[in-house]
């Protein structure tokens, strides 16, 4: 995991770009300049954090194309909402939340498709590409992780992959710390049941 993903402080380059963009976006300034500054700021943030966020989405979704799409969409959303983002230091947290939201939507879409086509296509869907690259011991855990409800999966990935502290997980998921504790506890127990570790 890239260390920058767990940092709450902004990267200095990104902070400088964000400040420049914020100044350019103030009322009365030329709109084109503001747009340009916003694009530069978002691009800088992307260059620093893209790989780490794609890795996060990869763990959540299991295939690289969907992971890259989720991250692209998140940064495009950041760009569109740039003018209302008051705190540059919150940009990474905002994008991370957007990536998680995108993963959640993708997983629900997949679930709907599985239900819709289950009778017509009884064969199991193709395994995620990392299944081909990983050992059996990892595949079992990741398969179990994918069977958890979305919120539980998110809590585990943020806690045990990104190693985020509880307050940061709460902010990323948009839930309280108490809910993080309960959700993580339930998710770990469910994961253990699914991989047969509680027997």
């Amino acid at each position: 995991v890239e260390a920058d993903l767990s940092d709450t402080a902004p990267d200095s380059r990104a902070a400088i770009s964000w400040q420049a963009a914020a100044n350019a976006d103030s009322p009365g300034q030329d709109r084109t300049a503001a747009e340009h500054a916003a694009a530069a700021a978002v691009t800088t943030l992307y260059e620093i954090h893209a790989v780490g966020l794609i890795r996060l989405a990869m763990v959540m979704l299991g295939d690289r194309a969907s992971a890259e799409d989720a991250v692209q969409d998140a940064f495009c959303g950041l760009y569109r909402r740039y003018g209302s983002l008051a705190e540059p230091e919150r940009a990474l947290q905002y994008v991370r939340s957007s990536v998680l939201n995108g993963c959640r939507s993708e997983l629900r879409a997949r679930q709907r498709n599985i239900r819709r086509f289950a009778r017509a296509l009884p064969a199991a869907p193709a395994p995620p590409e990392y299944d081909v690259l990983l050992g059996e011991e990892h595949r079992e855990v990741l398969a179990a992780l994918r069977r958890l409800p979305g919120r539980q999966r998110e809590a585990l990935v943020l806690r045990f992959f990104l190693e985020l502290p509880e307050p940061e997980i709460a902010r990323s998921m948009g839930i309280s710390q108490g809910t993080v504790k309960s959700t993580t506890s339930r998710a770990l127990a469910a994961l253990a049941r699914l991989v047969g570790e509680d027997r």
Partner: protein
Amino acid sequence: MNMIEDRLRAAAQAAADTIPAGSAPALRLPQAAQRRAPDTSPQRPRWPRLVAPLAAAAAVTAVIATSVAIAGGGHPQRPASASVPLLDQVPRYYLALTKSQNTGVVRDTVTGATVASIHAPGSLRFYQVFAAANDRTFVLIAGPQGRAGGPAGRLSFFVARLNPARRVVTLSLLPDLGPAIPRSADMFALSPDGARLAVGLGVHSAQLRIYSLAGHVLKEWQEDHLGTLEYPFIWMSWGASTLVYGLDGSATNPTSFRTLNTNAASGSLLRASRLAVSGKHLLDLGFSWGSYPVASGDGKTIVAGLMPGGNLPPGTVQTTEFAEYSAATGKLIRYLWPTVHDTESVLWSNFSGSVLVVLAPVHRYSPGATRLGVLSGSRFVPIPHVPDGSWENLRIAF
């Protein structure tokens, strides 16, 4: 180190390592014209300016309510009174699990004194506790200790009855309930009369059963195409027949809350319930559900915690705000309780909602710490001598 945690870390890292450093594709931003102007919607709440004065007044009169340990049960609570100490206006006794989870202690809310203790039989550990409305009947869920921190193997259910005069708690195993409830169940709620247990099931579907404490399935509802159940259920105390549940949401369709008539016939969960509060409006507000919901004793309102997204004004402390909705129309009635005590969970409420037992983080003074106390308006009185390790809302019951 826990084995399942280690396995999860290793597997996630192995999956992440399939993405080499520097391999991210170029960012493709939309055309400038497609950017949206800053959100100046009048619907967006201006928390610091609007809520502080509003909530100060609203918290006094708001009709709020209870979570699993709902009060009332046909016995209206006393109104909030400035002349009565806050600690005297909440249930006299509560049950909290200790950190080791092999013991539950019943404490006096006012004095903090331990009234009685119960110990999990054998090698079992207590995992969740619920209270009926009479402040002296509790149901505990126990199981063999699993490696992941949760129960391993079959769940056991106990009822604990307090005799405060003799300072004794009688712990009885509910022998028929353990085998009746599937191991996969992890959402429970005890009815205010202490006679029924609502149980949530289904990894990829929404399934809800009501059990009698004798182990009989009284009712069962299911939907395969609604998503999964999310958030613990809450019983509305009056009549004890209405249950609130949340359905799994998504980024474009956040969790909604529905009320289930538990007198309805078994079958379709959708047909037996109706939409109470939709989560779609949260997208416009830039918020998400931030905590478990609570429901009023009269069934008229639902209160849910809201948390802002990543788009906060400078200097704003991340807090859980509470909003009150009409259970009949789903309309937002008012915002409650601003940032004074960053309330995390509401465990109990009096009938009028003017006195609440809450879990409140006290991060300003001690990072990560949480305090259990009674909240009324802007007054917060800590409950003394709460056992360590019982800071999750499933481990304390009022």
